[in-house]
Structures are given as C-alpha cells and as structure tokens.
C-alpha cells in the first residue's frame, strides 16, 4: 500500500510539474517544427534551409510578438511516410505552432492532412509543384512554383528567335510541371516543342541527349533536380550540343548556385529563369550572402536557403501581427498578404492562394573574377503562379 501511495504521489507531482511547465512555456515560446531531408540524396536542400533558418534567428533574435521561437529540427531523410509521422508527432507531442521545411513535393503533400486536421500552418520552404498550396488551407509557400519560373522562359525564348525547343525533364511532379507549363506557353506563341522525360533514378542522359541532338532544336529546355545538374551539363557538352549552336534554357535548378562551381565552365552561356541568384544586385542580398558565407564556412546560399530565410521571416512577421497568438487560423490570416523585401527582391504572400508572388529574373551564367555566377539581365516583375491564376479565370 505504501508503495502505491508513493507512486501516486510521484505521478501527481510529475503531472503537476508538467502542467506548470507547459503553461510557462505556452506564455513565452512558439515552437516551430522544422522537417527537412538532412540525409539522403536531397540532404543539400536540408542543409541550406537549416543554415538559413539559423542565420535568420541569429540576426534578428528569436523573440517576436512576445514569443520566443524555438526550432525543433527533424530529419525525414526524404521519405514521405516519415514526414507524415514526424509532423504528427510534432503536433501531438511537442505542440508546435508552425510546421516548416518540406524539401520535396511528396513530403509537403504528406504533411498537408496533418496541418488541416490540427489547424497548424505549414510553411513550405522548398517543394515547388504548383498544386501543393491547394492540398490544405494551412499551407503557405515561400519558395517558388515551377510554372512560375518556367513560363517566363517561354516568353523570353519566343522573343529571342527560338522556334523549336526540345525539352528534357526529370519524370516527377516538378519536372512535369515545368514541361507542361513551358510547352503550353511556347506552343501558344507559335513555337514547336518535342519532349522526353528522364527517370528520376538514372543519371545517364546519353540516350535522351542523343535524341535531342538529332531533333536539331534551337534550344534545349531542361529541368533536373539540382544535384544532378552537373552530370547533365557535362553530357550536354560531350554530345557537342553546345557547338551545334543549341542554347541551354530552363528554370534555374540546373545551374543551382550551390553546385555551380563544380559544374565548371560548361555552364557558361546557359540562359535560365529563376527567382533567386546569389549574384542578385541589392544591398539586402549582399548582406545576406556575406552573413551566410561567414556562418557556413564559405558555402554559397542558393534558392533553397533564401526560401528558408524568408520562411522564418514570414513566421516571425505573422507572430508580430498576432501579438504572439499562436492559433493556427490567426497565424495563416496574418501571413496572407504579407509583403516583404527579401534578398531576392520584393515578395508577397498571395492572400487568395497563400502562394508566393515574386520577381522572376532572366539570367545568363557567366564567369566573374574567376567564379561562376548567374547574372540577371531582365526582370519580369511580380509573377503569380500561372497554374492557379489560370484556374481562377
């Protein structure tokens, strides 16, 4: 009997302490569950975003609207089932106010249902398939959508006397998004398009590029996830496509700033459209790049990093606006319509779609002071995601 009483006492004490503890926390902490692929083939995405999130908090302090932001970092290894479980555990056990991160489309979609059910905002910092924000009313995106980056490419190509384009994209959500949005726009403008899709797993592009070279296009439109961009560029040159006068165009993933140096000179001359280049000419960006490099041993920030940085900022601004109220609906409402000056230029969270509206830049890969950069030479201001814009009409 004595033992039981003691156990009871202990249990009571524990639960009391827990209750007090969580109450104390609730007053001054807002937990953010950051789910990223820190291992596996997409680890570089995770590392960039994680570094950017840390940088933001180091620069701006962690207290916003009276709440101290606490980051709980979880590795989902790029596996959607794990993402889903981690999201659920973060919501149920850690009582996070916001879920953030999400390196790939399937991962973002896997957590969508949790966000809806738990009424917790899901800030997507990387995944770029257009439809993601429709999966839950609690999803807010700070990265970009592939149609957003690909359609301006079609306009540029049409204006620059490119009539025939061969597209090579990786066969999964974002790749198909890039291909269809580009092809539709380009065909509507009078161009002709031929397409192949490369399986996600096989990095030997030879047969696909052989087809491309036999089609003798004016330009080759390419989307591959950033890691295998280098492989593609080398084989592009090996096939002699550059010498045959075929321009390389596409959204900026293939000449990702993070790996541009290792791709080497073969990247020079590629024309890409994207929302961020490390060479973007603004004071805000220079400060961002310098701080990021200093904090990460000289690693360049890429478009993933800037999305992570802005994502944290969106969360921080929302907390300020709600005065520290961590209710999911209030936070999402506060995020809608947020307008910020980011290192990439002005950005806006579209109040209707919760997707990002931003400038798309046309860039050319060049060598400057012995380093390779994507140098911006034209701006298409404040582009909305064209897929959702078209649905509305």
């Amino acid at each position: 009997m004595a033992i039981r009483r003691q156990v009871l006492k202990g249990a009571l004490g524990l639960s009391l302490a827990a209750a007090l503890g969580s109450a104390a926390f609730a007053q001054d902490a807002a937990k953010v569950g950051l789910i990223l692929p820190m291992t596996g083939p997409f680890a570089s995405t995770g590392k960039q975003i994680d570094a950017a999130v840390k940088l933001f908090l180091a620069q701006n302090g962690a207290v916003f609207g009276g709440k101290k932001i606490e980051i709980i970092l979880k590795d989902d290894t790029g596996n959607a089932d794990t993402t889903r479980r981690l999201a659920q555990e973060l919501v149920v056990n850690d009582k996070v106010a916001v879920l953030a991160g999400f390196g790939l489309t399937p991962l973002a979609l896997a957590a969508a249902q949790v966000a809806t059910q738990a009424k917790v905002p899901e800030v997507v910092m990387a995944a770029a398939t257009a439809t993601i924000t429709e999966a839950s009313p609690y999803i807010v995106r700070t990265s970009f959508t592939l149609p957003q980056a690909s359609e301006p490419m079609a306009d540029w190509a049409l204006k620059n006397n490119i009539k025939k384009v061969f597209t090579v994209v990786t066969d999964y959500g974002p790749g198909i998004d890039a291909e269809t949005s580009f092809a539709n726009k380009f065909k509507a403008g009078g161009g002709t398009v031929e397409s192949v899709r490369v399986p996600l797993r096989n990095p030997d592009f030879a047969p696909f590029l052989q087809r491309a070279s036999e089609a003798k296009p004016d330009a080759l439109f390419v989307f591959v996830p950033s890691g295998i961009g280098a492989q593609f560029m080398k084989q592009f040159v090996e096939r002699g496509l550059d010498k045959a006068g075929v321009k390389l165009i596409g959204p900026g993933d293939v000449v990702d700033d993070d790996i541009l140096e290792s791709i080497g000179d073969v990247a020079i001359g590629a024309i890409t459209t994207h929302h961020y280049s490390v060479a973007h000419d603004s004071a805000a960006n220079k400060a961002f790049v310098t701080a990021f490099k200093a904090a990460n041993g000289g690693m360049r920030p890429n478009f993933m990093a800037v999305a992570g940085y802005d994502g944290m900022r969106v969360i921080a601004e929302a907390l300020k606006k709600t005065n520290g109220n961590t209710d999911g609906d209030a936070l999402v409402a506060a995020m809608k319509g947020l307008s910020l000056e980011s290192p990439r230029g002005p950005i806006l969270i579209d109040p209707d779609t919760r997707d990002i509206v931003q400038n798309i830049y046309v860039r050319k890969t060049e060598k400057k002071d012995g380093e390779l950069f994507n140098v911006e030479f034209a701006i298409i201001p404040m582009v909305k995601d064209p897929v959702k814009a078209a649905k509305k009409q």
Partner: protein
Amino acid sequence: MSHLQDRVRASLQASRRWHIAEIVFWLIALGSFWAFPRHLLLMNEIAILALFALSLDLILGFAGIVSLGHAAFLGLGAYAAGLLAKNGMGDPVLGLVFAMVVSGFAGLLSSPLIVKGNDLTRLMVTLGVVLILHEIANSWASLTGGADGLQGITINPVLGLFAFDLFGKTAYLYSLSVLFVLFLVARRMMNSPFGLSLRAIRDNQLRAAASGVPPSQRLALAYTIAAAYAGAAGALLAQTSQFVSLDVLDFHRSADVMLVLIIGGPGYLYGGMIGAVVFKFLQDTIAAFTPQYWMFWIGLFLVLFVLRGRSLIHGGVKLFMTRLPWLSGRGRS
C-alpha cells in the same frame, strides 16, 4: 501407422496450446497503449512492420523461400487500399480485405517464378518484380499519383465507430487487432499438417516430395498467403497514414523487413514481432542522436549480428522461452 498419426496429432495439439509467455506478450502489446500514450504513432508503425515481418516469416522461416522483393506485396496492398478509399469506399475493413485479395492474387500469379530455381534466382526474380512494380507505380501517375504519392485518401471510422485521430489511438488499436487476428490464423495454420509439410519442404525438398508432399503446390500456397499478409500490412500503412507514396515499393523496405525477421529469428512466428520492436527502437534511438548516419549503425549491427551475435541473442531468447517464460515478454516494452 495409426500410432504415428496419433503422435503427430498429439505434437501438433501440444504446439497449439498457448504458452504463458505468449499471453504475456500480447498483454504487454495491449498495455503499451496506456503505458506510452506519446508513442502511439511509433507503436502503430511497429505493429505494421511486425505484420509485414510475420508475412515474410511464413515464406522464409517456414518454407525457406528467400525474397528480396517482399515489398512488392506491401506496396500493392497499400495502393489497393488507398485507391479504394480514394474512390469513395473508405471503410477500413473493406479496404483491408480488398488489399489482401489483390496482393494474394499477385502472389499466386508470381508464385511459379519462385517455386522453381535456387536461392540466387529467387533473390533476383523477387527483386526484379518489385523494381518493375516500382517503375509502374512511378510511371502510371494518373492512377497512383507517381512520385507525388497518392493523395486525397479519406478513411471512414473503423466499424463506423472509431474515427482515426491525430494521436494515433485508433490507428494503434486497429493495427494491433488486425495483427492479432492474422497472427492467430497464421499460428493455427503453421501448427497444422500444412505447416508441417512446409517445414519438411524447407528442410529437404526431395525427401518431402518422396514422402507424398507436393512441394510446388504447397510453396505456391504459402507464397500466396504470405503475399496476402503483406498486402494487409500495406493496407494498414495506407489507412493509418491516409497516404501512399512510392516509398512502399522501395528496395529498403524489402531489406528492412528481412533484417527485422533475422533479428527476431525466423520460424517461430514471434521473431518478426520482436524484431520489429528492436528495429524500430534502434532506429528511433540512433536517429535521435545521429540522425544523419543511422544507416551506418544499422549496417554495423547487421554485420556484427551475422558474424557473432545471432547465436547469443537467439540463444538468450530460447533460454527465456524454455526456462523463464514469465520474463520473455519483456522484449515488447
């Protein structure tokens, strides 16, 4: 002759009797529901993995068929249950049965491939089949959602009463119940003349054939049943996460489940379940302090295990089972 029959019958009946350790095991599994309310999601995954490993045990442990592609049936079941729910029939039990039928049928269809041939051919063929399925699921995006995964699955409450919640309460109890029921069936089957004949084939196919057991028929049947079990695990996975991704057909699923079964030890039905607990526990703890490199530690564990540790662990388990039955359920917590 009848004397022999009697002895066989007696021994089968003896093995059908419940050992006290088994009862303790299941009580602990049920008790964990109240004991670890924060880990229901993880426990749900354990229950599903345990069912998947149980299914592999049926062919590997009892029939001696090695497979590197058991995830094929897990994936089929998951997609079958997911698609059924997506198209408006969200009853979980219906989905479960449907998944088992689909996977079982696929198992039956592919059984001629594995009935013949040696270990190496079996490994290759099973691996090839799962790779083909993975590719089909990836390419047939209009049906499966491709690499984005199958979206928009809504699952009705179990038996119309218990809705799936965020805490995983329903999920765990549902998965555990399915595991238990299917385990009972498997237990009865393996302690029947059918189970005996499988073991005879495993130990010596020629001798089994000579004593009147038709090996290919029995193996095909075992393979079909195991496939249906794997399909059930897939259905549980799809229903409790309300999501199916290409990952269910990935190579590592097949490798993991094999690992799970080997940890627990094949051939006595509990191996897969004990293995699932150990595996998930290891994965969770290792991943907690070195999230990046848990694969390394699991690899090291495997290597050491095969080199040295197996006899130690299994010897220990057997000792528990025979001498200290009331302790042997401990593995579950």
